[in-house]
């Protein structure tokens, strides 16, 4: 605390000195609406929305790359892309989809939903949250600027050494990839710390861990995975940076390096990464399926613990990516068995979702369709995963199109289908209007069709010998037909994404003539459906006290002893009204996260092109940190005249868990 008391420039006294700013650069931003507010916001909802928007933007880039790949492979000896360009395109497709699309969509929902699901006002460190987003965005843009500055990375998203060395890849593509992912890694790491602290410290009164919504649980597990996995990748990438930029020899075989070092480090990150990508989606459908089955989730504790089990066992399976690499029969056997074992908790989840639907009263809304799509499509990916866990079979299948099919069924049929459902499910909560249901269903069926046409044939292509990462194939191998089907499927898939974008615009236009959507359009179960739609900036007023799992549901319905449900209150009676939010502490907007994040790509450009530029970037970073530290977490000028509702009048006012704004203040001044 001494730190905060000795600060020379902070004005904790609250005395207003017009025109005076703590660091003398910026006037403290105050806008809550308008374009500028988005750049300075620390509101977890705005940040979540920006994560989602950025992810959809990168989805377009990654999607175009996917279509280029598919057009190149339409027929033998395709000539659309050169070998060099193809290698860049497929590398950037994988990198973009993993790091800049699926991860940030997970971050979007985690940011938006976790505080709402646990009854908090914001995340624990709102400015760090803003920084995470900007660092991710700048990192992602930085990687993609490589297209304009000599070409993208050409080593595959796994970037195996020594092919990633300067000798074998003399252009700067890999440097962009490497440094850009270090930046997005910083974003993920700070985001993970932030969300973990938020979940552990900022739950509403009565919200014990075992009363948390499943999405919050799964998102938290995946944040823990990020917390431990990202540093492994970053370490490996720093070694690669030193090799490429500063003549180090970490991966130089001529100097005695073992190239398997990179493989191990990459996959120690890379396998938990799979669960980082999919667990949030599992969480989403664990919310959606009960809502539209009109039944509670079957076996809540099993779903929670199987998710946590995946989080632990996920650390012991990485070498199954390396069965063919020559790690020796003992290692192969060990990792083969651990990989089989991880199928058990995953299978439990599938059966629990199925059992949740059993005996329910199923409403086939768009989110529900995508959820059922996930259950069936992910099952295919899970089962082909079991096939790979059998190491001898994997030695035939690895690095063929069978693997491409497998992980697209996991990450597209699994993670992305779940997120599509989440978009439809939470759209009214975030934007105050529903997406058109008919278009949503058309979206689902078109996506299911395109997805299967694209990726199902790859199973057979792989089993019949088509290698991955080849820019061309010859006639006479029997690859022609299914490649054509896959290319047709890819365009179908792209049109389904286009339909989704159309639906967003169409529904927005139509919404003008419709009554505003209420807080609870789906008859939801968890407390985020208590608050008005779109969510007010302060989230809850007052903070609710939670008494059980699916707390909001049981405010509306009572359950008799024999499991019969009776309505005890209407939604209007138990949902919260929009208030003016007066008297609620909210963290103040700030420029500094943006400044600090902006410095990072400048440093990265500097490492590639000129260390002087890195110095300038470094100065921006230091200035950003300085300004940040000197800036009080709450604007002393901001009006919070009284501490009325939540401190004294709320029904949770006397609970042990502090309200979020207080927590923000305390935690941040320490940090």
């Amino acid at each position, binding site marked *: 605390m001494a730190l905060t008391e000795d600060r020379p420039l902070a004005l904790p006294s609250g005395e207003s000195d017009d025109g005076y700013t703590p660091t003398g650069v910026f006037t403290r931003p105050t806008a809550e609406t308008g374009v500028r507010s988005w750049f300075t916001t620390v509101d977890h909802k705005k940040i979540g929305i920006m994560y989602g928007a950025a992810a959809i933007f990168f989805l377009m880039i990654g999607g175009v790359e996917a279509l280029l790949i598919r057009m190149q492979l339409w027929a033998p000896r395709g000539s659309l892309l050169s070998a060099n360009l193809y290698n860049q395109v497929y590398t950037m497709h994988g990198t973009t989809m993993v790091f800049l699309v699926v991860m940030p969509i997970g971050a979007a929902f985690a940011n938006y939903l976790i505080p709402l699901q646990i009854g908090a006002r914001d995340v624990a460190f709102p400015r760090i949250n803003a920084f995470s987003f900007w660092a991710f965005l700048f990192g992602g843009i930085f990687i993609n600027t490589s297209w304009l500055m000599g070409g993208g990375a050409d080593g595959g998203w796994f970037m195996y050494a020594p092919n990633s060395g300067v000798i074998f890849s003399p252009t700067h593509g890999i440097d962009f990839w490497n440094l850009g992912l270090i930046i997005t890694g910083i974003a993920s790491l700070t985001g993970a710390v932030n969300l973990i602290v938020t979940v552990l410290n900022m739950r509403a009164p009565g919200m014990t861990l075992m009363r948390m919504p499943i999405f919050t649980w799964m998102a938290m597990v995946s944040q823990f995975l990020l917390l431990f996995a990202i540093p492994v990748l970053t370490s490996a990438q720093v070694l690669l940076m030193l090799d490429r930029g500063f003549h180090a020899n970490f991966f130089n075989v001529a100097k005695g390096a073992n190239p398997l070092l990179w493989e191990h480090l990459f996959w120690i990150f890379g396998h938990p990464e799979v669960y980082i990508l999919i667990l949030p989606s599992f969480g989403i459908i664990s919310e959606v399926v009960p809502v539209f089955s009109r039944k509670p989730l079957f076996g809540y504790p099993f779903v929670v613990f199987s998710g946590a089990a995946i989080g632990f066992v996920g650390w012991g399976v990485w070498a199954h990516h390396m069965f063919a690499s020559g790690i020796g029969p003992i290692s192969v056997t060990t990792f083969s068995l651990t990989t089989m074992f991880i199928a058990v908790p995953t299978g439990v989840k599938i059966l629990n979702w199925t059992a949740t639907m059993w005996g329910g009263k199923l409403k086939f809304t768009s989110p529900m369709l995508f959820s059922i799509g996930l259950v069936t499509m992910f099952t295919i990916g899970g089962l082909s995963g079991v096939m790979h866990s059998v190491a001898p079979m994997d030695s035939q299948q690895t690095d063929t199109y069978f693997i491409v099919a497998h992980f697209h069924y996991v990450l597209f049929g699994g993670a992305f289908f779940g997120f599509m459902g989440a978009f439809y499910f939470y759209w009214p909560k975030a934007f105050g209007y529903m997406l058109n249901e008919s278009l949503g269903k058309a979206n689902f069926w078109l996506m299911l069709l395109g997805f299967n046409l694209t990726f199902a044939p790859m199973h057979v292509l792989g*089993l019949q010998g088509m290698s991955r990462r080849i820019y061309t194939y010859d006639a006479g*191998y029997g690859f022609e037909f299914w490649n054509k089907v896959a290319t047709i499927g890819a365009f179908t898939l792209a049109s389904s994404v286009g339909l989704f974008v159309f639906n967003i615009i169409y529904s927005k236009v139509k919404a003008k003539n419709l009554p505003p959507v209420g807080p609870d359009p789906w008859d939801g179960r968890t407390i985020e459906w208590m608050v008005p739609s779109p969510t007010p900036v302060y989230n809850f007023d007052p903070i609710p006290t939670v008494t059980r799992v699916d707390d909001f549901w049981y405010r509306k319905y009572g359950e008799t002893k024999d499991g019969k449900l009776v309505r005890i209150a209407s939604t209007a009676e138990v949902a919260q009204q929009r208030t003016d939010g007066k008297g609620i502490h909210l963290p103040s907007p700030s420029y500094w996260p943006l400044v600090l994040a902006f410095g990072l790509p400048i440093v990265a450009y500097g490492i590639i092109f000129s260390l002087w530029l890195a110095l300038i970037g470094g100065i921006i970073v230091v200035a950003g940190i300085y300004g940040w530290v000197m800036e009080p977490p709450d604007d002393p000028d901001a009006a919070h005249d009284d501490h009325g509702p939540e401190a004294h009048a709320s029904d949770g006012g006397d609970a042990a868990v502090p309200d979020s704004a207080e927590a923000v203040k305390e935690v941040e001044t320490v940090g």
Partner: protein
Amino acid sequence: MQRLPKIVRILAVFSFTVVTVLFAALIVNSFQNAGKPLTTLVPQGPSAESIQQLLIPVTSIAFVVFIGVLGAAVFISWKFRERRDADPDEFPAQVHGKTTLEIGWTILPALILAGIAVGTVMTLINLNREEPNSINVQVAGQQWWWQYKYDVNNDGNYDGPEDITTATEMVIPAGKPVQVTTTSNDVIHSFWIPGLNGKKDAVPGLYSPLKLQADEPGVFRGQCTEFCGLSHANMRMLVRAVSTSDYDAWVKNQLKDHGADPTDPTALAGKKVWQSLCAQCHVINGINDLKMKETPPPLVSGVAPNLTHLMTRGTFAGSIFNLYEPVSSDGQALPMGDVAAAGDPGAALTGGKVDTANVNRVTLEAWLRNAPALKPMYPQGGRGMPNLNLTEEQIDQLVAFLETLN
């Protein structure tokens, strides 16, 4: 937009039908492996066979589980759908879970997986057991072709005077076990002959074992399966399994060198060209092999393919082009690059006369004219063959010389 729900219903039926037909077609097609030289589903040697023995039951179990889950999802969706006339205030029974059921479906998959684990471990032991009296071959990947060294005298050294160094194609006796050791001279590659065994990465600095054995004589194709840079797609390999007597004759021929001058004057001129240009990177035993050992070329990969017995091979340039033209039934040459049918060296394989009438001169000359145009390479970085700007006369002379290399 009024008719949209109806369109959606039609789309749903269409989509569901197409996907069902697609899955059925894929299952049927996975049994149709004729004309698919890289298929993993037709084992042609004991190692691939033991993998197949595992694949069939495991895939069957996976298939049954998938049908179960899909069937359950479809059945439940149909049976428990909300009816049109349903009372909106009527709720289904609120079941929160059933511990015995949960424990049951935790244990059941664990038991199934335990069974699969037993089979897996047994197969792994089988695949890693060293066969007695194996032929030892060291396989080294480099951008973007494969080198094979035979330890003919079994002294543990692959570079002795009685050992063989060859490239692109690997010749083995059918019915005999071959112990391959994979390694690499530059980046990571992966050696894969799907008909004979799974793949093994070729990692620089590491030496990894892989058993190969072909039941019958034949040609077994492969493809590098670890991304290895620019021309990864063009890095293929070929195993030619021959009878034991042919194999012995092949070995005997490979041990000969080609130091003597050819009698044909064009070929002799070609040899001169070869010595002044090609010999900087390539080796022909008897001409420059000793010199190359003293001053190895400044290549990232270390070497270019040994050409001593070029014409005993059916393919060249990383096995992407046929050295001998398989003439199709209508007498037309196959389009360049369509190499699913491997070129057949005929009698030249064991040192017999080269069938010059059948040599794929068109492609060979095109290659000599401008190799990087036919196969993406980085010759300026010491990785791959450069465009040597040869004259047409030099090309003719070189081809005449190369045709003597049986």
